[in-house]
């Protein structure tokens, strides 16, 4: 399915005023996050016109257009109104030439206007569209924010992800999503997760049913979305399996193009999972801040071994 944003939502979410086309805002859709500033097109060069993009008119474009003859203006603005062009957008509350309005009305092209300066508007809209148009994937798991670190709990159904999340919330951490986490890639290094809107703030606890975390624990207990820093995979304790004992294993799970660090925690009756996960989050943070307990310990061990080796050689001589 191709993601899109309707012009109606686009205008509403970005505080844009509708100048033309209130009645056909639903018919036009934005499919790409790129923005075009049609400078060369105003001169009549349409060979590479990016017709599927938002056409953004700033001071440069409007003042250049004003130097053209009315016929030239009507001609270029009409040419810009292709079937797939989503919208004309004007920045800084500039007054567009009347031929722009005329061409837009004739071709049912919405025209929106913003108070923001052009560069600012362009970056706000790019961020908004990148977020809205990003490819999404659903992952079975629970997403929590522990001390500001986004932790995705995964594992088979019934292993206790939701119960662990409940305990974490009780301990002052935040729930983002339970059961289904929708993820998208924000940039080269970041995967962001959020709840599908219907599941927002809800936890399903076996035996109790659906629990509204925001209602019971307050607004401090929930968060809308968070970058996923670490995946904690819960699995049943297998006495034959060997688990990472030193914290030196480098395991990853790839989501889209990003390798997200991953650790596996065995679940056994009597192990307090929420505290273990809390510590995992703190340890992960400490590592990112440059303090890796495993590395420090290994270096000290190397020194001790070296010392004992010297002593051994001393004994021989």
């Amino acid at each position, binding site marked *: 399915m191709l993601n899109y944003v309707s012009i109606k939502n686009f205008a509403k979410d970005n505080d844009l005023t509708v100048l033309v086309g209130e009645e056909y805002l639903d018919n036009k859709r934005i499919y790409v996050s790129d923005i075009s500033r049609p400078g060369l097109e105003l001169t009549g060069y349409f060979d590479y016109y990016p017709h599927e993009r938002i056409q953004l008119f700033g001071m440069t474009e409007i003042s250049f257009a004003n130097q053209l003859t009315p016929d030239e203006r009507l001609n270029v603005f009409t040419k810009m109104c292709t079937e797939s062009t989503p919208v004309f957008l004007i920045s800084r509350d500039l007054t567009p030439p009347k031929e722009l309005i005329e061409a837009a009305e004739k071709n049912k092209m919405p025209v929106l206007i913003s108070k923001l300066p052009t560069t600012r508007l362009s970056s706000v809209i790019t961020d908004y569209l990148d977020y809205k148009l990003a490819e999404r994937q659903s992952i079975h798991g629970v997403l929590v924010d522990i001390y500001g670190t986004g932790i995705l709990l995964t594992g088979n159904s019934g292993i206790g992800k939701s119960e662990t999340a409940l305990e974490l919330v009780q301990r002052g951490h935040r729930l983002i999503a339970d059961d289904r986490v929708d993820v998208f890639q924000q940039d080269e290094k970041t995967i962001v997760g959020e709840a599908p809107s219907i599941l927002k703030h809800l936890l399903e606890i076996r035996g109790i049913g659906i629990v509204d975390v925001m209602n019971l624990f307050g607004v401090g207990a929930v968060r809308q979305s968070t970058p996923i820093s670490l995946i904690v995979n819960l699995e049943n304790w297998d006495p034959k399996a060997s688990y990472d004992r030193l914290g030196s294993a480098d395991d990853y799970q790839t989501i889209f193009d990003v390798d997200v660090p991953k650790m596996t925690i065995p679940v056994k009756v009597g192990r307090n999972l929420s505290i273990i996960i809390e510590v995992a989050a703190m340890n992960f943070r400490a590592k990112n801040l440059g303090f890796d307990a495993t590395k420090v310990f*290994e270096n000290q*061990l190397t020194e*001790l071994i070296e010392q004992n*080796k010297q002593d051994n050689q001393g004994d*021989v001589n």
Partner: protein
Amino acid sequence: MEKRDYHITSETGIHARPATLLVQTASKFDAKSTLAYQGKSVDLKSIMGVMSLGVGQGSDVSVSVDGDDAAAALDAIDETMKKEGLV
């Protein structure tokens, strides 16, 4: 109780990685295993204990195993020692 002595020849001694493998091997058996070095002995199933000895190249250590599957455990530990190039 079964007991075997080793002279550690590996350059890095019993560092984190070989220690982990020795502990994993010992943990597979019910028998109680102990590693002794310079008068100190630690549980061979405890990773922090094993590493705390800081066994270096040229050290003499001994492994004692006590329990029903002691013989099998000692053989497995022996095999790990050799495979990891410790002795």
